[in-house]
């Protein structure tokens, strides 16, 4: 997720969790809050001690350098937002970076990855979800036949229960064998 966030997230040790539960004045909080604020300085107040209900809209969040080049940025932000529309509160913002952090465990990333790739949110990755994923990845440079072929092959490889779509168990099983997952 880039240098900056890694630098910030390197301070996100488990100690921090108890810290933020009780008080808001830790250094890390301030840094993340700083990043959050610079997205929408007119919306986000400086003082967060009384937990205001502020949401930064999707369009501003995807301008962050770490997310700007990611083809799945919209889906990522939507997955972590409480309202499902991509408007993140500060809680959701912290949540997102915590899950995408270098040190976060594989199981957590698998769960969120499944949610990200599940476009229609039916808890299955069906063929249409796959096609949309592929198109986002390649920005529509593959021909439709090639797309269909690749999606068919992918489902063939990963579908274990034979319902022509990937449930979470299928996805998890496949990801556990994918050597490149984790970045």
């Amino acid at each position: 997720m880039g240098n900056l966030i890694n630098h910030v997230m390197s301070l996100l040790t488990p100690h921090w969790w108890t810290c933020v539960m009780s008080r808001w004045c830790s250094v890390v909080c301030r840094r993340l809050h700083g990043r959050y604020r610079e997205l929408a300085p007119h919306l986000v107040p400086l003082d967060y001690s009384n937990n205001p209900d502020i949401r930064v809209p999707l369009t501003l969040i995807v301008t962050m350098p770490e997310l700007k080049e990611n083809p799945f940025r919209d889906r990522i932000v939507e997955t972590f937002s409480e309202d499902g529309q991509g408007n993140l509160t500060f809680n959701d913002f912290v949540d997102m970076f915590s899950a995408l952090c270098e040190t976060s465990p594989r199981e957590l990333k698998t769960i969120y990855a499944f949610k990200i790739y599940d476009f229609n949110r039916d808890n299955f990755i069906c063929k249409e979800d796959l096609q949309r994923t592929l198109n986002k990845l390649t920005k529509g440079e593959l021909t439709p036949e090639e797309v269909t072929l690749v999606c068919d092959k992918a489902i063939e490889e990963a579908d274990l229960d034979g319902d022509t779509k990937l449930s979470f168990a299928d996805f998890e099983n496949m990801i556990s064998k994918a050597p490149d997952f984790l970045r």
Partner: protein
Amino acid sequence: MEVDSVFFTDRSGRGSSNPLLDQLPSYQSLLYRRKSSIAGTKRRNSSRGRLGSSGSGKWGVSTVSRQEEKQKGQTEQKPIQELAKPMAEKRRHNTQRMAEARELSSWSQLRQRTRRNLRRLREDGQEWLSSMKLWRGDIHLIEGMFGTGILSYFSFLRFLVMLNLIIFLLMFSFVMLPIIIAPHASGNITYNLNDGGACTNYPSSARRGLVIFHEHITDLLSGGGFLERTYLFYGYYKVDKIHFPNITYNLPLAYLLVTVAYLFLSLIWIVKRSATGFKRSLVQDEDRFQSFCNKIFAGWDFCITNENAAKLKRSSLLYELRTDLEEERIKQKIADRTRKEKCRIYLIRIILNLFVIGVLAGCFYSIYIATIFSQEAQVDKIKENFIVDLIYEYLPSIVITLANFITPLLFSVIINYEDYSPAFEIRFTLMRCVFMRLTSIGVLLFTLWSQITTCDDGPCTCGYNELLYSCWETRVGQEMYKLTIFDFIIIVAVTIFVEFPRKLIVKHCDCGLAKWWGQQEFAIPQNVLEIVYGQTICWIGTFYSPMLPAICTMKYFFIFYIKKVSLVNNCRPATRPFRASSSNFFFLAVLLIGLALACLPVSVSVAHLAMFYMIALAGAHKRVIKQLREQLATEGRDKHFLIQKLCQAQMSLPIKSPVSKSQPRSSRSGSGRSPSYHTSFSNNFDEGVFLAHPHPDSSTHV
């Protein structure tokens, strides 16, 4: 919830949960769906109450609570950070946990706290360790700009720097340090006596008189002259034992043991590093199994922040997918081949393989000739010209480098005609290049060995040609030193004189040549082979030149920065991506082959030395036996002499009494023990007492 109840009515009858059945993917997905559906609802009043009331009452509360307990048990052990729940949920979970913790007894509280603290300590320790890693920031930058394939190359380079440093520290602390501190720690050094005659004579080759400065440069570059009798080479270590106040330190033994130790350490470290990669490669046939899924779901590098890099990643992913589809098509084509076509293709392949073997044989022969020429030129000591001398010294290195430059180009052209699938083409070419690189070192060593062990007139007395090579180990060390230096010079020269100009030409020139040549791509396999070659030389050379690991550490240190600058300024990422997971395993496999090759000459040298030692030992043993025999014989003669003297002394005493008459008889029988006693007694005593002939009893004692 309908679906849940359908599932649960099947299992409500079950009493205790079966651990095997709980692992079923369908059950796990059910649990997940329950968790996510619970989290998705807006009813977030109380956590425990919620879990209990989510059921529709169709099944017994006991089943639900048992599943809840298990779920809680599963989530309880995980730290809160790792739960897949939104922030507010996590906070609530944490307060709930703290409330629960307060309810427990003080002993279990203490246990929980210690467990948590230990886990935090371990995580902190790991984080601190990873932050101390060398070049962390640089590698992050490279990862962001070029992706994880090239990252693995630089991470491999970092690993080699650390390995060489550790090897050097081993050598230094066990071999050089005792020699250095001996005068300061009141140690008494005993040296090897030159008692092997001509075989252990090592005349000094230092230059005397007025030395022109360029000869110093020649010495520095070739390891001769003033560098020869330094800690750098094997021949300097003449120390036999160091006697410290409490212990005696046997240096030759230490030298041998450290050699075995560093080879063993390298093996363990490499195997440990490749363990994870190997596991994955073993589990999946990297070629086809799940490659499509892997590319779609795990193909995107989330570390990329640069727009250009993103574009490139996208195109490389596209390329990969297209290649895979192409592979499928080719597989189909291969399956459809007719018999005639198969025969034709096999014939072509045989011819081309023979050609490749011919090319390899030619290269090896030229290395052989070059080495012989170089050795003879050094031995002749006819100094023509500073530059020409250097060229003669470096001739084997030059030929090896040229061969290793030309053959990969040749191989990549030939493979096009052999009609393999694309993935196999890449692998096969790589294998040929690896073979070429490592065998060229082998040929060099073999040539050196043959030169060292051939004497002009028949078999060598000392086992090697002591006239030309007074210390052959130093000579081998010098060759390895030269190879290392030349390797480094070539890498620097290629970067400065080829890569930078190429970038300038492509950027500013618009001609057809520039367009065809294109911008530099960072070719990972070739670069990896380069550093594996360097590392193999280091392993071989460390036995003959103990300071070579230090030189290699510095060499790789500088290479890191040179390659990084070249990469950032001159290169664009490879259009054919080299996947990170498979590359790690590939690098370490090739390194292991290099290590195996390195063990060979070192073990031959050690075996030769051991044989030499044992022959010497056997000779000494024979000498000792001979000495003992001589000593026994001398002692026997001493005894004989003493007894004669004793008899003479007795003879001089007068004998008068009759008692004495019987005495000689008894003494005669007693004296039968030794014939000399008997004869002297019988000769020297009174005629009347003795019989004319000796007593038959006593005669049997003779």
